[in-house]
């Protein structure tokens, strides 16, 4: 019963957060002077044509009315129109049409990263924690500290320099038209995915190691050591099960952090994903498109954080009773 309560509570909190975020995004993009009507008409704007277009787009309504219209459109999947392709007096391309292929590309990238990075990083992190102070542990600690304290674009740049320029194994930019299959797709995905795998893995490794070491220093492990349980058995029978919850939490959190990594990596490799679309939209100040992309990214982030939260509640009964 308390478990159900806790889950309902967190779900409610997640929905409220999403709502607050949507308000923030809406306010963020609607406080500026000049609105979409101005942008669409551009040089051709006369007071009359502006007023006409505003009425047509519903921009003459007060802000809170526009917010709820925007929100209900968003919920029904109508994302509005982009500035792109908008000429004098015409409204641009529907955003949902622009988003879909990009979303597929980004999901492909994210899936590739998750499938490789998670098992690899968790294994290495576990090994480092099982043998603390050894050469392996020190190498892992040192390398990951280095990797998390440099910008993602440095990792990407160095990878391009080594793999694409010096060795010539892979192309330096990822060109995807949507028709690629098999090896071609793998080649296009390889460099962006590799960069993200390196960045995400080092985070996951560090946090996995810290989590397991934390479990290893708890009293019941000390007890097991003192009564003479073999090391392997301590780790596999006592520590691992108690560490599963926190590790799953670490994984979900890091997949959420990927959101910002994706932005950088898609730009470096000119990968035609959702983040690249958003950066381009920011540069051309295509606000409806920025709003739509930001909502997708924030929602993904909040859902992943929510999953991380759920996992830790399920794995640690003490968290079911909020203080």
């Amino acid at each position, binding site marked *: 019963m308390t478990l159900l309560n806790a889950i309902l509570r967190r779900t409610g909190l997640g929905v409220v*957060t999403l709502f*607050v*975020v949507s308000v*923030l*995004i809406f306010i*963020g*993009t*609607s*406080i*500026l002077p000049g609105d979409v009507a101005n942008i669409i008409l551009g040089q051709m704007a006369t007071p009359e044509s502006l007023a006409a277009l505003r009425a047509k787009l519903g921009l003459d309504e007060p802000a809170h009315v526009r917010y709820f219209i925007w929100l209900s459109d968003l919920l029904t999947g109508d994302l509005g129109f982009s500035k792109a392709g908008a000429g004098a007096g015409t409204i641009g391309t529907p955003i949902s049409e622009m988003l879909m292929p990009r979303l597929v590309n980004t999901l492909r990238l994210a899936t590739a990263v998750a499938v490789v990075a998670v098992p690899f990083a968790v294994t290495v992190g576990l090994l480092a924690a099982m043998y603390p102070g050894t050469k392996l542990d020190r190498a892992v600690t040192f390398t990951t*500290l*280095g990797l998390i*304290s*440099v*910008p*993602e*674009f*440095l990792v990407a*740049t*160095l990878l*391009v*320099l080594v793999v*694409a*320029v010096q060795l010539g194994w892979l192309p*330096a930019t990822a060109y995807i038209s949507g028709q690629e299959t098999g090896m071609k797709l793998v080649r296009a995905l390889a460099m962006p995915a590799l960069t993200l795998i390196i960045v995400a893995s080092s985070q996951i490794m560090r*946090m996995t190691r*810290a989590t397991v070491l934390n479990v290893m220093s708890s009293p019941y492990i000390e007890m097991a050591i003192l009564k003479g349980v073999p090391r392997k058995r301590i780790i596999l029978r006592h520590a691992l099960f108690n560490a599963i919850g926190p590790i799953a939490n670490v994984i979900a959190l890091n997949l*959420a952090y990927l*959101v*910002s990594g994706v*932005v*950088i990596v898609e*730009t*470096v490799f000119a990968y035609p994903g959702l983040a690249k679309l*958003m*950066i381009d*939209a*920011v*540069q051309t*100040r*295509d*606000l409806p498109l*920025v*709003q739509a992309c*930001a909502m997708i*990214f*924030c929602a993904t*982030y*909040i859902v992943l*954080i929510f999953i991380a939260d759920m996992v830790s509640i399920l794995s640690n009964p003490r968290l079911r009773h909020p203080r």
Partner: protein
Amino acid sequence: MADSVDKTETGTAFEELPDAPPRRRLRLSWSGRLGVCVVAFWMAIVFIGPSISPYHEADILDEALFIVPGSDNPYPETDYQPPSSVAWLGTDYLGRDTLSRTLYGARTTIGISLASTLLAYLVGVTLGIAAAVGGTVMDSALSRFNDAILSIPSIMLALVVIAAIGSTIPILIMLTGLIYASTVFRIARSLGLDVKVSDFVEAARVRGEGLWWIVAREILPNVAMPMATDFGLRFVYVILFISSLSFLGLGVQPPQSDWGSMVRESLSGLPYGSVAPLVPALAIATLTIAINLIVDDVSAHAGGRLAKRMI
């Protein structure tokens, strides 16, 4: 420790108050010392960089400088030149000197990051301590709002705001400062809550000290040390954040040089083996790694208690 034991045994009992235990001196490991050297180097560059740089940051080097003696080509290429005696670290995509731009860029990158971090601390610590010592209503109002800010990926928040109001240096500092204030708030609040329930604050309250006195004389000094360590870490995040924004072309605008935008501008030179994108990238990396090395030492000195709180 030995000192304090000696004092209490040899001194006449309770004639005067016993001295506070001697402060443990911070001993830096070799990696910490290396970190201090690198940070000191970059701080020096912030001040003297522009005066020792061979060219101005926006100068496009003259073709005449690159004429090879004996060659009959009067118009040599100036962009993406390899390191030479004319330009020690080569030139970028427009033919500007990479070394000069890196030296100038130190001031922009470090200056903006420092200003943003200070702003984040000013706002975060003020509100965090206010939430800790203020009433329940203030605490939960501030905390809920903070949770909402924290639940948006910081880069998304920045992108939305920059799309709306553009990117100038004051906007960049305000934006970054406010985004990072939310993490500072969380730490300051939790540290403040810990100190608030301690015996010495209780004693001060019983003594009849006012709220301001307690905050200024008891709480702030006791959260200062952990916050100082966190300042180092936060500064690293801010440098990475500002550089990433500049790298996306949304931070510092040209012709002003900044390490993040320098990497972006010259990225196209990478296939030709140009070092132009690598120099600023390595500048960022050396600075951030150096700060991390110092922070590691300081938090080990504090017994690793800080590290746990910051995860």
